[in-house]
């Protein structure tokens, strides 16, 4: 692998992982007890309740569940967090248990801050402002892709400002994540494919970040192996519990990888096309990933080529003896092939994206914070636009 001589890094992975089919009910109580807690508020959303995913968990908790807060929309906001925290405080909760996807998990993360510190969430907008552990939080994810269960970032909409705010606090990382593959069995094929490609993008971009480091790379490489093997199996048979579990684990590993090493050009472009044309995040990551990989090696950078050659091995399309450039291209081609195997969209135009949209998005991409971590330095919006055009 390629690291600078001056390699120095901090790797954080404070979240305990409990994995297994049925673990969301069989392990939850003992994890609560291990944290010294006995009064849980469950945070979820109406979709999860309707799908029947939270009912069994709440029933298992019995008296230890002092309330269920399910008023969480798709893009959560400060007002939602304030209501949730007030509800939890009123119920005397000493732990928050989130059951759901990114929005639910981020709401719960921010509730934990308000429960511990009090005051307004706006006081905590920023990075690493806290100085002590926050109210315990156990995450039970119902999707496999975002990695939110192991990251310490929360994204919350501030209605007054009309924008999303970021709260980055290592002291507020979830204490435990219970990965129960049974909870992902009902995910439809497109959502399975796109969230899986979000995880694949986290893993590959972490490895090609200027902040790459060996611990994150180890997580990323195994995530890539698992995703390339098991994501197609999940699409072929959504009820394949083993494959679902392996993809869930991969998403968590990829979460650790990018939580430490960051992401790059794919995320910069996905954020931007999402803002301009409302293309779902996972879908845009999947579509843009192979084009961005191609872009990153097309200037002949030896480091990038060496890393993609390693990724090709993890994808199972190359060996250590292969010529690096050839292996790197094999990785790019394999991602294209994987998209086809999982019936993932391959062009942005399928989501109504037009030339005018990508021109606007290229402008935004250059100013996106993720782009500065990309292994290939990108400073010209025309370069980004050229990649968008290939993916259009």
């Amino acid at each position, binding site marked *: 692998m390629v690291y600078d001589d001056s390699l120095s*890094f*901090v790797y954080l992975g404070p979240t305990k992982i409990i994995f297994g089919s049925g673990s969301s009910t069989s392990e939850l109580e003992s994890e609560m007890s291990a944290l010294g807690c006995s009064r849980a508020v469950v945070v979820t959303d109406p979709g999860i309740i309707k799908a029947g995913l939270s009912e069994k968990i709440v029933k298992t908790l019995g008296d230890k569940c002092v309330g269920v807060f399910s008023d969480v929309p798709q893009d959560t906001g400060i007002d939602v967090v304030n209501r949730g925290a007030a509800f939890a405080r009123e119920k005397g909760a000493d732990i928050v248990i989130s059951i759901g996807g990114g929005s639910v998990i981020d709401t719960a993360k921010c509730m934990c801050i308000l429960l511990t510190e009090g005051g307004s969430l706006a006081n905590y*907008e*920023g*990075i*690493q*402002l806290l100085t002590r552990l926050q109210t315990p939080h156990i995450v039970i994810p119902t999707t496999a892709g975002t990695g939110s269960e192991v990251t310490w970032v929360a994204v919350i909409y501030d209605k007054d*400002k009309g*924008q*999303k*705010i*970021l*709260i*980055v606090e*290592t002291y507020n990382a979830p204490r435990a994540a219970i990965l129960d593959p049974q909870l992902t069995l009902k995910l439809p094929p497109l959502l399975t494919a796109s969230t899986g490609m979000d995880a694949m993008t986290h893993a590959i971009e972490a490895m090609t970040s200027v*902040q790459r480091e060996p611990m994150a790379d180890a997580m990323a490489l195994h995530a890539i192996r698992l995703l390339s093997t098991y994501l197609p199996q999940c699409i072929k048979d959504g009820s394949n519990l083993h494959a679902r579990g392996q993809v869930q684990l991969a998403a968590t590993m990829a979460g650790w990888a990018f939580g430490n090493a*960051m992401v790059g050009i794919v995320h910069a472009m996905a954020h931007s096309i999402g803002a301009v044309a409302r293309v779902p995040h996972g879908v845009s990551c999947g579509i843009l990933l192979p084009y961005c990989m191609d872009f990153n090696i097309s200037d002949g950078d030896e480091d990038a080529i060496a890393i993609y050659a390693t990724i090709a091995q993890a994808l199972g399309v190359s060996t250590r003896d292969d010529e690096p450039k050839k292996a790197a291209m094999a990785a790019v081609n394999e991602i294209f092939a994987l998209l086809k195997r999982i019936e993932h969209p391959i062009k942005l135009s399928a989501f109504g994206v037009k030339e005018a949209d990508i021109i606007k998005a290229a402008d935004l991409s250059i*100013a*996106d*914070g*993720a782009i*500065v971590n990309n292994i290939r330095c990108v400073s010209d919006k025309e370069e980004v636009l050229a990649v968008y055009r290939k993916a259009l």
Partner: protein
Amino acid sequence: MAEAFKAFTQEWMDEWKKTINASKEYKEIAKDWEGSVSITVNADPSKNVPEPVYMFTDYWHGDALDFLICDNAKAQTAKFIMSGDYSRWKQVAKKELDATKALMQGKLKLKGDLTYVVRNVKTINKVVDLLTEVNTIFPDEV
């Protein structure tokens, strides 16, 4: 040999501001930046920093405006409030530590609109780059 300035003095701040305002590259990169950033250096008596140092820096569309040694009250009025230990700031000032990486790793703290910072990370990196052009004498090197 360029004149050397003692870190965390008004003369050093003036030189940093002059270096920023002389940079055409900065003007282009920072053309959209609006607002002030305060920097708090935590006290470290063992490194000749007996009291916390508060600095207030203000930027507007590619120009550096007020660059002041100030008190805590003034520092708290900035749009972005950064703080950290002396040894970390020294590493940043000598480009031994990337400022954004230091934030992510908890080596420095930032209060304020992080999405704005993330969108303008090139501006921050350039301000730090330009600081390295100032010939600096650090308190523990005196």
